[in-house]
């Protein structure tokens, strides 16, 4: 699972270019090309009430975007990375997913929103739709974030070296294994991988002490297998076992061990399941201040 081609859709929010630059180390792991995409919202130029279509406005937006992207292309070229521009009118989510499919990218990188609202989520509705529906690994990039720590204090966090200490949170599923393989391909990028597993409340509550010990032992063994796979790829790795509410425990472990990114496997959930049950990977993407790479 090498990352050779990345799709980077943007709305030109603050620090979008800085977020793009954090991907440049991937050049050492085989990154060749970045596809820069801007979707002009159809409602911005189309369906003028009783009017029609603002063709001039579309052309102006295209030119404005092209000029901005050309600056970004110079930056990427300085890192030795090729790039391509896609500017189109449409709806954000379907346009991005269609481009990801058409360009056959290996990674989709999406931005965060400001952590606001009662849920205090870093993931907006568009990003949530993308990470739920994307058939390719999706990185929720969070270059500069502010969040409240446990004591209610506002903490500012700059995620500029995201590939240094990624933490792979595994539930031993097939997507988790694919996430492991993706990390294994990043030999010249990653310093150390933290491999963790959380014995979730849903499982531990049904086990007696003996059963729990058995599960703990088994989990340690699996963690060692993951670490061994990474070691075989030439990447240092250390195991961590946690217990409790999965999403919160993963975030706690990531903070305690100074992770720079969280990597998780994710299963596609349908709309109804997503609405009522959610998923741990999506929850982590929403709540963690760290960039989150979700591998389907």
């Amino acid at each position, binding site marked *: 699972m090498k990352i050779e081609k990345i799709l980077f859709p943007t709305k030109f929010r603050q620090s979008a270019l800085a977020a793009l630059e954090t991907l440049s180390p991937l050049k050492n792991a085989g990154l060749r090309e970045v596809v820069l995409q801007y979707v002009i919202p159809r409602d911005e130029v189309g369906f003028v009430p009783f009017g*029609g279509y603002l063709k001039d406005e579309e052309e102006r937006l295209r030119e404005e975007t092209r000029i901005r992207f050309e600056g970004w292309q110079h930056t990427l070229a300085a890192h030795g990375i090729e790039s391509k521009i896609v500017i189109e009118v449409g709806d954000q*989510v379907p346009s991005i997913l269609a481009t990801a499919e058409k360009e056959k990218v290996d990674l989709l990188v999406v931005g965060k929103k400001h952590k606001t609202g009662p849920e205090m989520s870093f993931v907006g509705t568009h990003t949530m739709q993308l990470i739920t529906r994307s058939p390719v690994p999706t990185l929720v990039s969070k270059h500069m974030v502010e969040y409240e720590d446990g004591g209610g204090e506002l903490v500012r966090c700059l995620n500029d070296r995201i590939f240094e200490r990624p933490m792979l949170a595994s539930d031993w599923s097939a997507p988790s294994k694919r996430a492991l393989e993706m990390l294994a391909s990043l030999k010249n990028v990653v310093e150390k991988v933290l491999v963790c597993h959380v014995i979730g409340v849903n499982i531990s509550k049904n086990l007696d002490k003996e059963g729990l010990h058995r599960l703990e032992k088994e989990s340690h063994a699996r963690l060692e297998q993951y670490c061994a796979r990474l070691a075989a790829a030439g990447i240092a790795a250390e195991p961590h076992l946690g217990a409790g509410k999965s999403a919160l425990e993963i975030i706690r472990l990531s903070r305690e061990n100074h992770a720079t990114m969280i990597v998780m496997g994710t299963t596609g959930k349908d709309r109804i399941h997503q609405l009522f049950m959610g998923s741990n990977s999506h929850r982590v993407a929403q709540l963690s201040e760290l960039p989150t790479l979700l591998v389907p």
Partner: protein
Amino acid sequence: MKAALSFLLVMPGPAFAGGGAEMGTSLPLYSVLPFAGMLLSIALFPLLAPKFWHHHFGKVSVAWAFLLAVPLTVAYRGAAVYEILHIVLADYVPFLILLGSLYTVSGGILLKGSLRGTPGLNTGILAIGTILASWMGTTGAAMLLIRPLLRANAHRTNRTFMVVFFIFLVANVGGSLTPLGDPPLFLGFLRGVPFFWTFNLAPHFLAAAGILLTLYYFFDRHYYRREGITEAPDDGVKEPIRLEGSYNFLFLAGVVGAVLLSGMVHWGEVSILGVHRGLQDVVRDGLLVFMAVLSLVFTPRTLREANAFTWFPIQEVAILFIGIFITMIPCLKILQAGAQGQLAFLIAAVREPIHYFWITGLLSAFLDNAPTYLTFLSTAMGGFYPGVAENEAVMRLINENPLYLLAISAGAVFFGALTYIGNAPNFMVRSIAEEAGTPMPSFFGYLLKYSLPILGSVFVLISLIFFV
């Protein structure tokens, strides 16, 4: 007079409830200015300041509505509040629910497949759209077929005339057979015109659609030959033609059934905020919303995305029409007062069915056709039955002078095609065509090059055949 003075000075006038007829005789002529302003805004802003209009049309609509509602309420107090609530609850809300449900349900149907635009196929698509329009609304039929038509003809050099005829037929003329087809006819239905009475427009529909389809075929054949196309291009990708989300036709049948039901039964009345509404109408609105919800639940999101479905057009209609409906209250009231009202000169001038056909039509072309229909329905009722309750006046008009209602209906629906601003789907079709790279004529280009020469001739023929 006192009420009129109160309106002018923005001072309290007589308070009365349900005194609509009395209001019509006392309202001054200038009370229709916000309505004129609202309609002129719709006509002129998209031409003169499209970017401003695109971003601020909601504020413009609300401003005109307030400009009417505040002084009217100050002058007529309870009666004004009643009239505003009445037009919102009895006309605006059902109108919006019907449009919204038809738009939602038809947005869940996707026509896929490798269509290759030939004169025969294109004429067939237009004919199907023309027939469907009366059953799924002109907006629904237009949204269903415009993208497949554009895709099928992507290889053709001349596509503009196709979209223009699509606007003529699918977005307008096709909607003339049922109250579901075009908003003016649904407003007529809400005022008591029976559902199946609209079938009386079938001869007019057949004449107009027949002439336009024949003309279209020969236009297309001419361009097809001139483009030197001997056979459809084979790009190697052949996808069988199929309808996805066709179960939405069931929900569409539910919409038709709900509207029919409300016209056939009388279950008594309920009072909502003091406005009496037939229980069957409230049930109909509930069923329409239910059909839209079913469509949303059962139609996969990807299918709507493939249709480029967006709520924006229906939001626009909702925002603009609240302004239209509120500002049109004085106009309707004055016209309903007949010779007693300030628009007696208009009622006196418009006497024959042919007058109604052309005046309703021409105003529908440059204003929106829904309020224009209501205005001239009120004019006819004011002329024949001044002071008579609305439902009774409508039934008497149908029984005693049906040609007038036919002329108003045909004028409102057919002439909506004369300009881009005549009917809501016109601008949606234009927008989609331009986005897809089909050059469309300007407002005046459309009018002078296409609609006046083609539709003008058709309407003269319709007048001579049916209204002289």
